């Protein structure tokens, strides 16, 4: 089934050492265009490290990270994000003192169509472009249902809405691939239901591929088409949700945690 898909992101034998610790060990995985893939594993398995490698926060010790046909391993994060990879963070990293709208606008930074002089002298171009990027940002906020919170300080929002703001900010980059790091963490069951709908909508409305790290098995099994399972930095299993949930190695890695597929 995997052969026919066009690979958007591919990790080729990627490893990452921190001193003597091998956090990620020869991982091979890929996400196809339009795919909604999951990455699961027990705590400390190296999931977030993989996200940090893809987004350029860490440089891989070995291996290649191919995005859109280009090796992006070791590039700076802002270069990688402009190539079309956006992410959210496990422990929300919003610009807390800024408003929700400003948070989203910052992600449109790369697309601002005016220079320093236009900004300082408020030339017509400034007004035109600001209006445009504000409209685009508001559109994204409306799609996520938080347009009414646009002028609230991001840090003052409840947890679930902060998560949504982070997703909105990531979507504002108009990414080809969005990496969601535990988006359901801290959400109540109702919010989680909405989130699952949202993740599916992100793919269809924004035409992006999604790679999802999630502890909530209900979310992973419910939305992902294909799942990679990581333990101690190595891939121990991969496949469709049904295949993965029946894999004895996966069950053993989770040791007692129930997989409610």
């Amino acid at each position, binding site marked *: 089934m995997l052969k026919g898909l066009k690979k958007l992101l591919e990790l080729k034998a990627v490893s990452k050492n921190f001193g003597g610790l091998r956090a990620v060990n020869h991982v091979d995985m890929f996400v196809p265009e339009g795919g909604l893939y999951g990455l699961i594993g027990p705590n400390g398995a190296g999931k977030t490290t993989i996200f940090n490698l893809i*987004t*350029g*926060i860490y440089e891989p010790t070995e291996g290649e990270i191919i995005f859109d046909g280009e090796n992006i391993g070791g590039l*700076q*994060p*802002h270069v990688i*994000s*402009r190539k079309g990879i*956006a*992410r959210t*963070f496990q422990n929300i*990293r*919003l*610009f*807390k*003192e*800024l408003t929700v709208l*400003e948070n989203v*606008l*910052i*992600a*449109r*930074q*790369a697309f*601002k169509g*005016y220079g*320093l002089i236009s*900004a*300082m*002298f*408020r030339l017509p171009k*400034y007004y035109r472009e*600001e209006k445009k*990027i504000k409209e685009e940002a508001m559109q994204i906020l409306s799609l996520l249902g938080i347009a009414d919170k646009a002028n609230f300080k991001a840090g003052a929002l409840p947890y679930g809405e902060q998560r949504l703001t982070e997703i909105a*900010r*990531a979507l*504002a*980059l108009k990414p080809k691939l969005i990496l969601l790091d535990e988006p359901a963490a801290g959400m109540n069951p109702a919010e989680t239901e909405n989130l699952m709908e949202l993740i599916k909508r992100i793919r269809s409305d924004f035409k992006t591929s999604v790679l999802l790290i999630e502890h909530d098995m209900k979310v992973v099994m419910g939305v992902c088409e294909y799942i990679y399972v990581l333990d101690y930095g190595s891939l121990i299993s991969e496949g469709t949700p049904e295949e993965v949930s029946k894999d004895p190695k996966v069950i053993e890695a989770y040791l007692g945690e129930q997989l409610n597929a």
Partner: protein
Amino acid sequence: MMEQLLLNFLSSYQIQVLSFIGIFTILAISLDIVNGYTGQFSIGHAGFMAVGGYVAAYLTFYHQVPFILATLAGAFAAAFFGLLIGIPTLRLRGDYLAIATLGFAEIIRVAILNLDVVGGARGFAGIANLSNFDIVLVFTLVSFVLLFNFTRSAYGRALQSIREDEIAAECMGVPTTYFKVLAFVIAAFFAGIAGSLYGHYLMFLHPNDFGLLRSIEILLMIVLGGMGNLWGAFLGAIVLSILPEALRTYNGIVYTIIVVYLIGVVISYQKGRYSLLKWITGIVIAGLTVAALLIFGKDIIVKYAGQMRMIIYSVLLILMMLFQSSGLIGLARDLAKPLSRKLRGA
């Protein structure tokens, strides 16, 4: 024009104080771009001011370059130094950046001390009086508007994203190193303008005017006024330009004590629930203290007037840091809230 008009109401000494408020406003708002908006801790602003001041003064003194051109040249020279210093040092964080910028300002000062062409340790005398209140006013207004627009643009948002979370900013496509250097260069540019205004106003420059104390003075203005807010920086520049002048006289000291005390009372009371009773109690306590000072403390105050200045300075700043980290502008905002609520009858 404005100066002539103001001379009807104010002494020329008071107009000079106003001019310095303008010059220090430019310094404070430009430093706020780096320290307040971008969240980088620079304490070498006087160095850029010195570069701008000396370059501009050199040009008007030796080459009779028109003031505007000389000032712009000084500003660009300062900006160039900003770039030169910014590229290597902005990779440093926190304390390390502070020490590097401090070191840079000292290097500039010592270099000028040994530059005979601009007077060296004797100071640079005989600079033409090309700056006055009107010119300072125009430059201050223009600088404020330009920097204000800058902070309210995508550029300003990018700087603030760096302050809030550098890693998240990078992941959202903000080239953080570029913007940190840009902030530094722009701050240096405006510090250079302020330096030129300063030199051509006083008609004299001395390297020791641009030492550590001057840098800290500018830093205190933005801390006192409230970091990351140009109006706050402006407020800080006003207060810390007037305060040292006020503290020269006995009456000034007393008034200052009243104001500082009131601010202290307000800060401590606004922490709890706002009430008129608390306000009145605070004012009564403040009044009694001042009366006591006037009756029993006059000799002491007069005797130690010099030291009083520094004590009041320190007390004010400690109070601000401990209880009002958002500065005077934050205090004003917090006070306006319950008051406007009361006025609306809620």
